[in-house]
């Protein structure tokens, strides 16, 4: 996107998006080589200091034998933490759960958000109320919203079960135990996680949808394209950068956030919903094996890194066109 439409002759002489000021004496603030770094540096330094430094510390923790109360950083023990952790069936179970949890919840979020966002681009009565209602899960403090869901799916008092029973979908005698059966427990935590992220993803996709120039949609309608072919050949490709970023953010979030699982099931039943982030917390903070917790947390880091780089590349290249 580097080409500049010539507006004046002065511009034609300058190749890279230059300014119209004579090239000889540009004020400091206008020199891009100066302005660029100056504008980016504060943000980079800030994040580096508060995330980068502790992160490097955590990397070291993962290869040390540090415990929760160790003074200093413990001794270097190589990959022993990682090998120890691989021997535990709990860890392997958590690994599988992490993938299931992340992939399923993100797929659901993206699909549902796309549907909802598309609906919100249309006009209908009560739109403003709908928008208010769907924003609620996102703005509720996570700790409190999840506590609310604890009751919603409680083994005794669940209003969800009550409604299902009233609709004769389930019998009175056997209410589904949302946190007690592995599959249901996983479905519950995925469901609550999707519930909480849906508004956020919807807003992002809505932004993307509204930025698709009208002309594009109108042109395709004129050409006789039906709804579905419009969706697949025009809208979705145009949304690719937004979807990729939203998807990536969602994946990372699902990998690293354990609030929903911690509050609802504590990883149970029998590690049925234990994911890497919750296992790391239990082992490292509650169990006292800080280095072990760090190792679990960082186990998927190389893979996540790769995924992130790939997806971000896709997003950026798509934006260019």
């Amino acid at each position, binding site marked *: 996107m580097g080409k500049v439409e010539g507006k004046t002759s002065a511009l034609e002489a300058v190749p890279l998006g230059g300014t119209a000021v004579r090239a000889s004496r540009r004020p400091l603030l206008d020199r891009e080589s100066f302005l660029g770094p100056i504008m980016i540096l504060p943000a980079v330094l800030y994040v580096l200091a508060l995330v980068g430094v502790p992160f490097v510390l955590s990397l070291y923790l993962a290869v040390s034998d540090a*415990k*929760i*109360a*160790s*003074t200093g950083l413990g001794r270097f023990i190589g990959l022993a933490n990682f090998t*120890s952790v691989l*021997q*535990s*069936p*709990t860890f392997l179970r958590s690994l599988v759960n992490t993938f299931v949890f992340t992939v399923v919840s993100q797929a659901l979020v993206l699909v549902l958000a796309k549907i909802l966002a598309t609906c919100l681009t249309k006009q209908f009565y009560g739109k403003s109320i709908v928008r208010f209602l769907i924003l609620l899960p996102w703005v509720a403090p996570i700790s409190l919203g999840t506590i609310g869901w*604890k009751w919603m799916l*409680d*083994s*005794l*008092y669940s209003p969800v079960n009550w409604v299902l029973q009233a609709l004769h979908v389930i019998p009175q005698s056997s209410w589904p*135990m*949302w*946190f*007690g*059966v592995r599959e249901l*427990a996983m479905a519950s935590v995925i469901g609550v996680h999707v519930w909480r992220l849906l508004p956020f993803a919807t807003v992002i996709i809505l932004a993307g949808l509204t930025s698709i120039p009208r002309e594009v949609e109108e042109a395709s309608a004129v050409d006789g394209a039906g709804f579905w072919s419009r969706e697949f050949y025009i809208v979705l490709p145009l949304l690719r950068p937004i979807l990729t970023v939203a998807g990536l953010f969602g994946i990372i979030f699902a990998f690293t956030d354990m609030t929903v699982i911690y509050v609802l*099931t*504590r*990883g*149970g*039943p*029998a*590690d049925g919903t234990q994911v890497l982030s919750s296992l790391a917390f*239990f*082992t490292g*903070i*509650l*169990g*006292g*094996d*800080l280095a*072990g917790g760090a190792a679990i947390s960082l186990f998927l880091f190389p893979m996540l890194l790769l995924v992130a780089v790939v997806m971000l590349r896709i997003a950026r290249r798509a934006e260019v066109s």
Partner: protein
Amino acid sequence: MGSSQFTRRSFLKGAGVVAAVATGPTAFVRTARAQGKTLKIAQWTHFVPAFDDWFDKKFTKEWGEKNGVHVTVDHISVNDLRARAAAEVGARKGHDLFGFLDPPPAYEDQVHSMNDVVSELEKKFGKAINLVQRATFNPRTKNYFALSDNWVPDPLHYRLDWWGEVGVKPDSWDHVREGARKIKEKMGHPAGFGISQELDTNMMLRGLLWSFGAQEQDESSTKVAINSKATVEAIKLMTAVYKESMTNEVFTWDPSGNNRFFVSGKGSIIQNAISAIRTAEKQNPDLAKKMGLAPPAAGPKTRMGSEHLLHCYVVWKFAENPDLAKKFIIDLVASYNDAFLASEFYNFPSFPKSVTDLRGKLAADKFNAQQYLILADAEKWSAYPGYPGHTTAAIDEVFNTFVIPNMFARVAKGEQSAEDSAKQAEAEMQRIFAKWGK
């Protein structure tokens, strides 16, 4: 929790970064306390709000005035205590006194020894009860790493009316199994022994194991001993109880789950601290009259339950006023008559003589004196995680990663045989023990 928070100030060090200290909201401004010492205490939000009122507004205030110290008490939710402790240690800054609800052997290197406090208290009140000693003492370093002021017994709660109807008393585990089954068949009410990844399950199942003669480790605290015939027997019993008289909701619980289960009137029996029956007294007094307490069920070898909670204070090595902190604990234990009553009997004294006429106090309860008297001998039937060894850091990690509850859950759900599950638990425990160098 009141206006004292608004007047608390402390000095902001290294003001370089945050130089512009304006007249903003109180929480942003911290200025020097001109004179006087301070004592900062952190502990859990007690389930009895009245206890926190007594502690925060009466006891610490009066103590503060008597000793010329400004005392602040910060409360932390039970679930978040460990995380907060980790952060304070990581920051090497925090409170003087930190109250854990289970012994923290992993933090031994970061705390002052309590040996002097223990000997001082022993002079006044005699020795602390055995379980407290074993749980807060490290035999290798001959060091008390924490001082326990109170502990919480874990009795059975059962429905007097229903158990009376089937003519069984929950005396031994076989009785419990039989009674629960009869009640389920006759009246449809299930039993409530949780098999979830949470505190109540951890405690109850340990009691079950001990009553069969099984144990997590040996007395020297170095060898894993979980894989034994006794363990397998215990697992089989709980599996039978599950199949005959429980529903799969017992896999869904957190510590509040069995409370709700019993207090709602659905369950026939649970094992819990007296928070359950106290809640019933407030929420549903008529139902509370039908509730009874009993010591933990006896197994073939013995009658034993675990302490439900063991409240113990540590004094961080980086505390600003360690001597004041130690004095505070000594004076707190000396006032335990008041603490015991303010907590509605929840806080049982670790130094039994610190509460005079415990039995009499229990018998004078306004609601259910007859039931609370059961607790008079609680010490005799209570142990602690790691029994018969000590509560070590390795046992602590075993506890917090729910090895025991999962061992039982896998079998109850039919995923593994009892023998295989015990083997898996043994392997997991050995892995953890190896990490802690034991």
